[in-house]
């Protein structure tokens, strides 16, 4: 059963990822991204990270992909682009070569089973599984005790992001000050 879930979700993840990279139309790429994000959420559930799976679906598939689609529609760039043209000579072979080399490097410690290379020693934040407490309780306890400062820092980060988005989205100040009706420049 576990293997069936893993194989189906893994196939969905890889199909979605390849769809993002190879689709001509940005809308199709965004929809393929949804497939990948749902597959990752399924694998989160399979590994007992229930709360993160819910947040993954809500934030990623719900908010971020909708934001992508909104920008695609707003800018009107939803026409297919020609993927046959290779603007920079030799770019794709070089990129694929770098990808294969990077994949080999990533798979090397996995093949040898030496997790210490990647992750250090098992740390002591707290157990991820408990017979009595659900996943949300364990996550919340660690988040609001040991990682409270980081949690507060993310709120500052979100405020900065909101201010940045507002500053980027507003029109230039000089045209506003004259009280003219601002027209979009081509």
């Amino acid at each position, binding site marked *: 059963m576990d293997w069936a879930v893993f194989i189906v979700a893994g196939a969905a993840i890889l199909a979605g990822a390849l769809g993002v990279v190879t689709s001509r139309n940005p809308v199709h*790429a965004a929809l393929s991204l949804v497939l990948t994000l749902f597959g990752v959420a399924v*694998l989160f559930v399979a590994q007992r990270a229930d709360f993160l799976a819910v947040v993954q679906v809500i934030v990623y598939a719900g908010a971020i992909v909708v934001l*992508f689609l909104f920008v695609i529609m707003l800018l009107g760039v939803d026409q297919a682009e020609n993927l046959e043209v290779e603007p920079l000579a030799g770019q794709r072979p070089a990129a694929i070569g770098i990808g294969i080399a990077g994949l080999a490097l990533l798979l090397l410690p996995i093949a040898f089973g030496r*997790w210490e290379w990647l992750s250090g020693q*098992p740390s002591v*934040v707290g157990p991820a599984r408990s017979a009595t407490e659900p996943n949300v309780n364990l996550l919340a306890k*660690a*988040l609001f005790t040991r990682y409270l400062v980081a949690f507060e820092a993310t709120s500052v*980060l979100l405020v900065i992001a909101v201010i940045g988005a507002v500053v980027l989205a507003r029109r230039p100040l000089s045209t506003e000050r004259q009280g003219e009706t601002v027209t979009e420049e081509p």
Partner: protein
Amino acid sequence: MAVPGAWYLTLAAILFVIGAVGLLVRRNVLVMFMCVELMLNAVNLTFVTFARMLNDIGGQIVVFFVLVVAAAEVVVGLGIIVAIFRRRAGATADDISLLKG
């Protein structure tokens, strides 16, 4: 029986490499941005896998923060993309390679 963690890590590595190659190959800034999201998800999957293998909630905490940072990053990044497209329509990454407009 549960799937060994090595399979999850292998899947995450493949997903990360697909995202990285897509980022290097594609010219459309929106699709490049989606490839960055693919790479972030691959790393998230790795963190959750290690959280299960080492029985440590710390990995899941990191994923939580990555989600927050990804949301902020998307907001600012798409704001920049909208600002670029307002200046010149149909821009690809090649058209905005110069710092001066």
